[in-house]
């Protein structure tokens, strides 16, 4: 099990740049702040559901760009002022259930 987790980490270089402390902060941010619109359980609200099932087909790069730049014409704001690209990729992986 540890070996599996390790191999996933190695295939996702972006996650390696995120410290455990920062990862905990990002997870908190996803649940609490993204959760304001997408629900604490990520089943949706004003914003779309962000469950693993809902994002199964979503590309991590595309997701990270949506996080960074928002979706114009909707309530999804750009988070670039608050997040680095590596952090946005970490969140995309987290949502897809692919973080260590």
């Amino acid at each position, binding site marked *: 099990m540890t070996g599996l987790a390790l191999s996933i980490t190695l295939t996702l270089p972006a996650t390696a740049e995120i410290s455990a402390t920062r990862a905990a902060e990002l997870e908190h941010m996803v649940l609490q*702040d993204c959760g*304001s619109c997408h629900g*604490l359980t990520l089943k*949706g609200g004003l914003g779309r559901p962000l469950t693993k099932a809902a994002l199964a087909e979503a590309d991590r790069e595309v997701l990270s760009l949506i996080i960074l730049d928002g979706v114009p014409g909707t309530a999804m704001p*750009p988070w670039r002022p608050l997040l680095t690209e590596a952090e946005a990729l970490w969140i995309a992986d987290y949502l897809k259930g692919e973080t260590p």
Partner: protein
Amino acid sequence: MKRFALVAAFLVTPLFAAADELTATGDLGLVIERATGSLVLVDRSDRAALGRIEGLGDLSHASLTYSPDERFAYVFGRDGGLTKVDLLTRTIVARTVQAGNSIGGAISDDGKLVAVSNYEPGGVKVFDADTLALVADIPADGKTIGLVDVPGRRFAWAVWDTGEVFLGDFSGAEPVVKMLGNAGKNPFDAVLTDDAHTYLVGLFGEKGVTAFDLWDENPTPQKFLTDYGKDGEDMPVYKMPHLQSWAFTEGQYALPAVGRHEILWVDRDSQETVATTPVHGQPVFIIAQPASPYVWVNFATPLNDTVQVVDSRTHEVVATLTPGKAILHMEFAPRGAEVWISSRDDNKVLIYDTRTREKVAEIKAEAPSGIFFTARAHQTGL
């Protein structure tokens, strides 16, 4: 023997002892614990938590309203759950998961009906306040927002996706639902003025607020504030403002600018902009401190560690407090002496004296969000 003991116990128990065990509800309140789906029952006078009520589902976005006798709370959860809680027994007495995703609700002026505003499937459902049996189901072409109680067993609401505003009359055998008009693009929340005169709908998809005169037989949309902040670039909105406690003070509305770190002051009669107050961040709640000229404001993440107090006469910020991490909500004692502030990431409710603006007490709560005192039972619109 047993009977004798019972009778004896009755005879020797002074009557006031029984009264001691009773709890009047007029100074009670409930605090939402958003992550654990629970409520903390609080006593305002004692500044104390009395107990916890669990099993309310997903309360990550939640609000509640009270029965006219202040005994029961109706809790509206994110997961479509409508839960009736008894403050006296501190138990859940009825619960129905009535939709997939909901945003809020209200109780009718006579306390007979509870209406819930739903996102998925979009629409409004109305329930018998006693049993939570379904009374009416009004579908909508999108997510319903801004549901308020209107006197005469009526409710008003708006639809995020279409901008339509509806007034439903549930006083007769069959509901009569009337479309009042279109508020504009993406209404995000709405509120009824304290005199039930004006239904104000805040817009996210375009600049402006749309007013409907509910004292008029045939209200029409009156849009104002359509060009605020035109001289600058809008900023990201990291949390939708909430309008339920929009401040009405000194003949003005104090409104949150959307995408601007400003409070907009609008004359209640003329709907003209009176002033703009630059503030710390994107306002979320702007709430009038009862019986005072002040409004208190909290802000969207990441600037949500701060609360500011603004004087409605001068429109100046008179105090900036940093009470804690992730300040989500503020609830005033009905006469304004204290304000209770939820600090989500500190797992505390902080109690401030509104004259000294100093903290006087705190209560533990798990990731607290909304705070609701029972005095809301007597407030039109909720």
